């Protein structure tokens, strides 16, 4: 199979960009990525975005971005797979390169949640479940996550602070990260004492309203040779689906889609779990981070919290996670999130991670989930 | 006055919401003496309840007791003065929720607190005329009193439903006679677009409640040759506890025959459901062969009076659903602030 490489990235800071539009944000990250790679044109543009047609009442984001970049005429698409949209877009982009149709493409993720209220954001999250049987019944994603959390604590007899520790780790890693939404430490005690969003899920175990855009440049091996920046290889990209509502599944505490996508990505990349130097996890809620680690086979069921408390998942631990703060602290601008994750993995593998730089990481795994696992996408990046 | 031919109660159901507010709590807010309050406490519908949801609750039990397939019901008539919609039938929602078919008549009746027995009258008539096999007569209200008004102490929420069909050996009770007495009496009303009703204070007593209630009972007794002694239970409309007991006194009815049908002391005045809930409470204890005289009152004004004889089916059928007492004991007392939230009285 033809190799696909990452040859550039561009990020906006994740925050509430009150004075900037969705269009403007995606243009900024895209231009940064193009400039970083020394490009003025690409063969195709892929935009990952989830809520544009609701919050900005704007469709055709492919055409919009092409116009913003002065690239009208280029083929351009908007890809949506819930919060896993970023990797879904990367998958389409990689397919275009591998088929030979394109040599170099731009993948831009963007979301601007601050055009809605925090309460509306809760309503929007139900779009990633069967909305008619959840959102319309007053059950938003945080409520479903809280039910998973309860099931988890009761089935495994696990300690809640182990799960809450995932928020602490993400915040620790975000310190000093210029594009992070919350670049400061938060203690376990603070997380555990924050108000409940839905018991037992604390507010500080969930993400908040965020705007942001991230872009990466993907290209073929031949094309990469013409570009100056350091590269990382997209060794695998895999996506799988599951029943949309977790409680319809045989075991709601097992993200089968993530298990499948992980398995197939490892196979595709020809690496084992032990070779994965660090993980960028989908910690939309603390409990989702724990379930992800377990579902993808990195820790036994019910044990992720212990690993978190034991420091195994910290930057200096045996399997660092969320090296720039994850969804929790870098921020979770939904459609852009996975592109941030990929850009951060790229920075690690190309030794541009600054104070968070990991030694000897040759392979990175990026995991992304739509909703509570109705789709899971996994990328493996390796040093080029 | 009309004898009722071939109509019987096959199922009955009562529903009282879980929340209660004590009359003394309302008195506390308005600086009234706690000795002045007309009842102990009243039932308050929760924020997610209305006359339609409560009608469904009561009807579910009525159908369960009847033991019939809901599809055999040919009419759903709902009496209420607190229709959630000014225009849009309540009965169709009740019917769909309970899996009753679409080939039915659905009607919403309004006659203040007499709306429930209006529904009974029309269902009885349809059954007698063989237009339908079974019909559902419902009284349901989330009655509202203006904050500070005397009605606030008693205006309560509840629902009662009857499945009425032809006479059979296993029916719960048989309808024998009914009279109705109405006049144009402005004792209580609510104009369109108004949230709360108006009433004429003490005028609601003698010329309204007592005049119509007592005339209906006297007419029924006189026309059919019954005497007080022929009845085991008397059920009246209960805007408070005092009125039905006073009516009984005027009619020389022993207290012991009235008390079993009193519900307003602990649930308040549930308007269209009120006398029907009294009937439900009596049916929970009545024995085959006993005779009941039930008399409603609705402002505006009028009374329906029914002679009902308990049948053999009661013993088995009443066990099929929870007794009304289950709803009396299932309760949570709330304060005035929570009461305002539950009843959508906080408007900004």
């Amino acid at each position, binding site marked *: 199979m033809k190799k696909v490489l990452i040859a550039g990235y561009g990020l906006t800071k994740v925050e509430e960009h009150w004075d900037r539009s969705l269009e403007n944000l995606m243009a900024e990250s895209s231009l940064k990525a193009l400039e970083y790679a020394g490009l003025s044109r690409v063969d195709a543009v892929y935009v990952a975005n989830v809520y544009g047609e609701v919050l900005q009442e704007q469709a055709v984001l492919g055409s919009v971005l092409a116009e913003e970049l002065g690239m009208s005429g280029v083929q351009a698409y908007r890809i949506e797979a819930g919060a896993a949209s970023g990797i879904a877009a990367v998958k389409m982009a990689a397919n275009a390169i591998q088929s030979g149709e394109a040599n170099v493409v731009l993948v831009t993720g963007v979301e601007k949640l601050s055009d809605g209220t925090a309460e509306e954001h809760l*309503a929007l999250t139900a779009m990633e479940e069967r909305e008619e049987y959840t959102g319309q019944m*007053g059950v938003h994603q945080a409520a479903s996550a809280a039910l998973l959390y309860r099931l988890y604590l009761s089935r495994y007899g696990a300690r809640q602070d182990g799960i809450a520790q995932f928020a602490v780790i993400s915040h620790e890693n975000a310190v000093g990260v210029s594009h992070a939404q919350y670049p400061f430490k938060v203690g376990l005690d603070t997380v555990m004492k924050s108000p409940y969003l839905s018991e037992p899920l604390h507010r500080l175990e969930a993400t908040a309203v965020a705007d942001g855009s991230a872009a990466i440049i993907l290209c073929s091996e031949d094309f990469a040779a013409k570009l100056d920046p350091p590269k990382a290889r997209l060794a695998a990209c895999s996506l799988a689906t599951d029943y949309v509502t977790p409680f319809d599944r045989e075991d709601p505490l097992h993200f089968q889609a993530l298990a499948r996508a992980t398995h197939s990505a490892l196979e595709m990349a020809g690496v084992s779990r032990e070779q994965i130097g660090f993980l960028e996890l989908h910690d939309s809620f603390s409990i989702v981070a724990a379930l992800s680690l377990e579902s993808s086979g990195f820790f036994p069921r019910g044990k992720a919290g212990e690993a978190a408390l034991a420091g195994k998942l910290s930057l200096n631990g045996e399997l660092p996670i969320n090296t720039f703060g994850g969804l929790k602290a870098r921020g979770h601008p939904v459609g852009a999130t996975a592109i941030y994750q990929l850009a951060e993995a790229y920075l690690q593998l190309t030794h541009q991670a600054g104070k968070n730089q990991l030694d000897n990481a040759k392979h990175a795994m990026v995991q992304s989930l739509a909703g509570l696992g109705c789709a899971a996408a996994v990328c493996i990046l390796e040093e080029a | 006055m009309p004898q009722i031919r071939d109509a019987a109660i096959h199922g009955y159901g009562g529903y009282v919401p879980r929340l209660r507010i004590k009359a003394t709590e309302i008195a506390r807010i308005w600086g009234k003496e706690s000795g002045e309050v007309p009842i102990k406490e009243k039932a308050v519908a929760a924020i*997610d309840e209305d006359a339609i949801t409560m009608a469904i609750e009561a009807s579910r039990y009525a159908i369960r007791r009847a033991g019939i397939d809901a599809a055999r019901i040919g009419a759903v008539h709902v009496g209420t003065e607190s229709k*959630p919609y000014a225009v849009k039938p309540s009965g169709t929602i009740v019917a769909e929720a309970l899996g009753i078919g679409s080939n039915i008549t659905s009607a919403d009746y309004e006659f203040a607190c007499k709306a429930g027995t209006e529904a009974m009258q029309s269902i009885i008539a349809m059954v007698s005329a063989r237009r339908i096999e079974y019909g559902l007569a419902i009284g349901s209200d989330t009655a509202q009193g203006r904050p500070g008004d005397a009605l606030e102490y008693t205006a309560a929420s509840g629902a009662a439903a009857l499945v009425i069909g032809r006479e059979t050996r296993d029916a719960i009770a048989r309808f024998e006679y009914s009279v109705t007495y109405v006049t144009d009496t402005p004792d209580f009303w609510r104009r369109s677009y108004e949230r709360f009703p108006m009433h004429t204070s003490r005028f609601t007593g003698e010329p309204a409640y007592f005049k119509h209630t007592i005339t209906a009972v006297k007419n029924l007794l006189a026309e059919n040759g019954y005497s007080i002694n022929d009845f085991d239970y008397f059920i009246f409309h209960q805007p408070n506890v005092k009125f039905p007991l006073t009516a009984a006194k005027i009619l020389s009815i022993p207290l012991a025959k009235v008390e079993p049908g009193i519900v307003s002391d602990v649930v308040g005045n549930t308007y269209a459901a009120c006398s029907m809930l009294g009937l439900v409470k009596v049916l929970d204890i009545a024995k085959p062969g006993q005779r009941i005289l039930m008399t409603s009152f609705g402002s505006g004004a009028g009374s329906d009076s029914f002679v009902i004889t308990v049948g053999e089916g009661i013993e088995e059928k009443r066990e099929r659903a*929870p007794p009304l007492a289950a709803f009396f004991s299932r309760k949570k007392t709330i304060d005035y602030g929570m009461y305002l939230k539950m009843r959508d009285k906080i408007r900004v």
Partner: protein
Amino acid sequence: MLEFGIRIPRYWRGKPFRYRLEGFRCEECGEFHFSPRLVCRKCGGKRLRRDKLSERGRLICYTVVKSASPSFEAYTPYIVGLIQTEDGTMIVGQLTDCDPEELHEGMDVEATIRRLQTDGESRLIAYGYKFRPAIQRP
């Protein structure tokens, strides 16, 4: 501010399940689906028949929702529970007529119909199932 109101035809179409827990069961493998399906999601079978979930079940776990989406803000705090109906189906829904202190895992609950939300502009009322602790005989 955006309105996330009730799309009326969509709400209307969803009545069978929302009012009566009536969905579609696969004739081949028994899988229950909340919505009309052409194909069974589990076995791929194409023979599905209307079926109704039991209105009784037991509570598996619950959470108290303190922050809600705009349509549900007036009802907060409210309880959301995971219920296993008597026929074994797992269903998520609101719990009503109870306080969290009264709830425990495994307790009997029954379905009832309540107001779910009221549309902001049209004031249309959406009715649907909620669960409550089973009514106990005194």
